[in-house]
């Protein structure tokens, strides 16, 4: 299969921030050479590990974010390694890096230093971008969700309980989505202009525009959001929409219109479970009335809560959906493996893992599209797996030269 990034060579300076963008390039057919420090990318050391045994070649987080990449280990603090990296960049299409601003200038590897390669797209994904008063502040994934506003809207209805940031590197994902958007636009332009360019993306900038209603709510109405358990923050407190099911799970009973047909089915279902209560009153046959009550009162909502409490989660989800009601069941990520729908859509990709002697089904890329073709193709590399191959084939180095560098600890 040929992906949208087929034929491109990407040099990625290993970092946990940018590795999803590099993965999508790799999954899209690009050859991604990840430059790792002697001790390996920080992404190899975070865990979880196979059998929980710390091993840089068996970090599952690294496996996921680095499918199909090549690993080249260089100590870029040292001049000979800098020269090698510079040579690689002179032939590369894309450079993806996340070092603190100023770092690469000191190593003579900033954009100006490598811009002789006119076609190079040099993309920096950093915490705050290349300038500004907070440029040099220290951040990690969770701290971005705090500063960017995600936490401020997320948590529990009890105002004394802490705001919450979601797990799973979401601020880095957001940053990667935009740096790759910029890279792809630059590739589009390069097809005509033949020229690359420099791209500066700040994770903080991205997170700050990613809180949906919170900013317009403030700028237009001067309102601050209340955090609400498992649901949208709102300028005004609302009754819960995340409701427990009979089997101890939670339905997200997203609010929506109940037109005549949906309502009829809903009432029949409530009757069946004996929870209809006041909704038998003919006034609820009037759509305007019931919707108004639903939005602002408790009668419809309470009946829905009783209905959900009277059903097991799966049953509730499918029945609601069969009536055109968009409720969702809070699943665990791993539970999706058992759902036929995703199998029917050919969502899982088998990746061979000699480390454990079997294949693992990986999630496909974000979209189903053969032409774009973004999907995991090969396992992540072992530390330094491709150092020699790249130095020999790409840079034309001899075994002797490589041995000297290895002996002095510049490469691994």
């Amino acid at each position: 299969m040929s992906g949208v990034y087929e034929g491109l060579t990407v040099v990625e300076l290993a970092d946990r921030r940018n590795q999803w963008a590099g993965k999508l390039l790799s999954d899209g057919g690009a050859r991604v050479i990840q430059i790792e420090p002697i001790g390996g990318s920080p992404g190899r050391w975070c865990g979880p590990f196979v059998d929980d045994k710390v091993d840089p070649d068996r970090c599952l987080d690294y496996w996921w974010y680095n499918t199909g990449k090549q690993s080249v280990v260089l100590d870029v603090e040292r001049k000979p390694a800098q020269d090698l990296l510079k040579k690689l960049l002179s032939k590369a299409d894309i450079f993806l890096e996340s070092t603190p601003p100023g770092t690469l200038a000191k190593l003579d590897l900033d954009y100006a230093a490598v811009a002789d390669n006119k076609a190079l797209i040099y993309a920096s994904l950093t915490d705050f971008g290349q300038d500004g008063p907070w440029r040099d502040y220290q951040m990690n994934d969770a701290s971005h969700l705090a500063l960017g506003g995600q936490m401020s809207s997320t948590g529990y209805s009890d105002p004394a309980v802490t705001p919450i940031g979601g797990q799973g590197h979401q601020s880095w994902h957001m940053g990667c989505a935009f740096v790759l958007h910029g890279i792809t636009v630059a590739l589009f332009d390069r097809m005509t202009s033949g020229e690359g360019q420099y791209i500066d993306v700040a994770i903080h900038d991205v997170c700050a525009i990613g809180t949906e209603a919170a900013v317009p709510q403030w700028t237009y109405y001067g309102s601050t959001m209340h955090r609400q358990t498992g649901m949208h923050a709102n300028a005004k407190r609302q009754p819960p929409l995340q409701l427990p099911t009979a089997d101890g799970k939670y339905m997200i009973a997203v609010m929506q219109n109940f037109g005549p047909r949906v309502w009829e089915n809903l009432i029949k279902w409530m009757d069946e479970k004996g929870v209809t209560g006041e909704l038998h009153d003919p006034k609820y046959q009037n759509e305007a009335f019931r919707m108004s009550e639903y939005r602002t009162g408790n009668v419809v909502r309470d009946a829905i809560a009783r209905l959900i409490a009277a059903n097991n989660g799966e049953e509730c989800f499918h029945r609601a959906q069969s009536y055109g009601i968009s409720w969702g069941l809070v699943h665990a990520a791993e539970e999706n493996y058992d759902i036929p729908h995703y199998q029917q859509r050919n969502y899982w990709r088998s990746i061979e893992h000699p480390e454990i002697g079997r294949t693992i089904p990986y999630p496909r890329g974000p979209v189903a599209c053969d032409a774009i073709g973004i999907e995991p193709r090969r396992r992540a590399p072992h530390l330094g797996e491709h150092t020699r191959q790249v130095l020999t084939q790409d840079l034309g180095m001899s075994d002797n030269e490589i041995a000297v560098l290895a002996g002095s600890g510049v490469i691994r």
Partner: protein
Amino acid sequence: MSANIPVNAKIPVRPGVLSGIRVLDFTWKTVGPWAPRLLTHYGAEVIHVERAGGYDDHRVNATPSTVSDNPQPIRLPGTKKVYSDPQFNTVREEPAVAQSPGEKKLYAAPYFNTLHNGKLAISLNTKDPEGRKIVDQLIGKCDALVENFSAEVLPSWGLTWERIHELNPRLVYMSASGFGHTGEWKGYRSFGPTAQAQSGMSLASGLPGKPPAGWGFSYLDVMGGWMGGLALIQGLLKAKQTGKGCYIDYSVTEGAMSMLGTYMLDYQVNGRRTRRPDFPPGNRSIFPAVAPHNTYRCAGKDRNGQDWWVFIACETQAQFESLCGLIGQPNLVSDPRFATNEARVANQDELDAIIGRWTRARRRYDIMRKCQTAGIIAAVVQSAEDRVEYDPQLQHREMHPIINNPEVGGDFPYEGYPVKLSRTPAFVHGRAPTLAEHNQYVYGELLGMSATEIAGLRERGII
């Protein structure tokens, strides 16, 4: 790329690196509109289609609108009853169409301005065969078509992928939906929170032993919209490479699952589930296990009486030693409970209590500044107000450009586009289009209809 643009056509968008790319935008709600909007920042011409006689929901209701205790359904000429967007519990306070001379029209609610700025707007009755013929013509003039209707809608207009491809072999078609357009759930409906729940994203957020905290907004309408925007430009790049269009079946739930890969692999390899008693871990970090790594209560409360918080983390021994100095407890460095990261993780309840006592009576931005000066990860839990009114970094980066839109009361700050390209810079357009503002351009100039033809369409309710 688009062929047959009349020479004298006045393309009403600012030129940019995507000039000449034209997108037919049938999106509504939130997840769909983002994808084409991200192209407007580079000069793509995005034609947002709204139903003749009606309008996009977000024009009038959706996000920021005042909350009322006595909502009234309203009637619009030629449309059925419509309600405010229930997801946000908001209410239309006035009809979209001026009922009497001088009455204020509200054709551009603030959030519409965010989602659709830089686009063109036309009206079209796609229920009518004549209207559908116009859709076919527009498909012939565009490079991409984006929609986030339910799976059955476009086929009900006769627009299967095969038909679309036949009408314009170069066109990229993206459908954004909750569960995709194939598989047994293709008819299932979804909002952002539905996809968050189903994918596993909601469960990965919260305190252990408590109900899921989920996401306090439609993360998958925002990030989901951005991933759609990424797929759209990828599809356009592919079309430029091959001269051939493609179909992108974007399931938002699957997109979210592709951001949870680590958990999937942990389950496959180690049998560890995310549905387990100690997960999610609140704001702590399990992989890697480091401490401290949490939110801490500070002095003061926000306008709603919610406490103010700061996030602090030490990922290195040096950071922890600095923190001990900063909070005036240098002895903690050698305290066996906290001397190593492993010990700190094992004793993080105690450690969090100690740090919390230090932050409790201090101002949040002072804490952040002091920690950061000492090289410690620290971030205020910033609200929208904090970001728009105070955050000096966002101000420096000009992330809240002012857009003037008389229909929503003039100049307001909006959320900008965060990618800075050196040679082909992105830009933010002015306001979102008013209702059917570009009918003349699209029907007259682009499709070459005469004034009489356009008047006829209008009379017949087609546009």
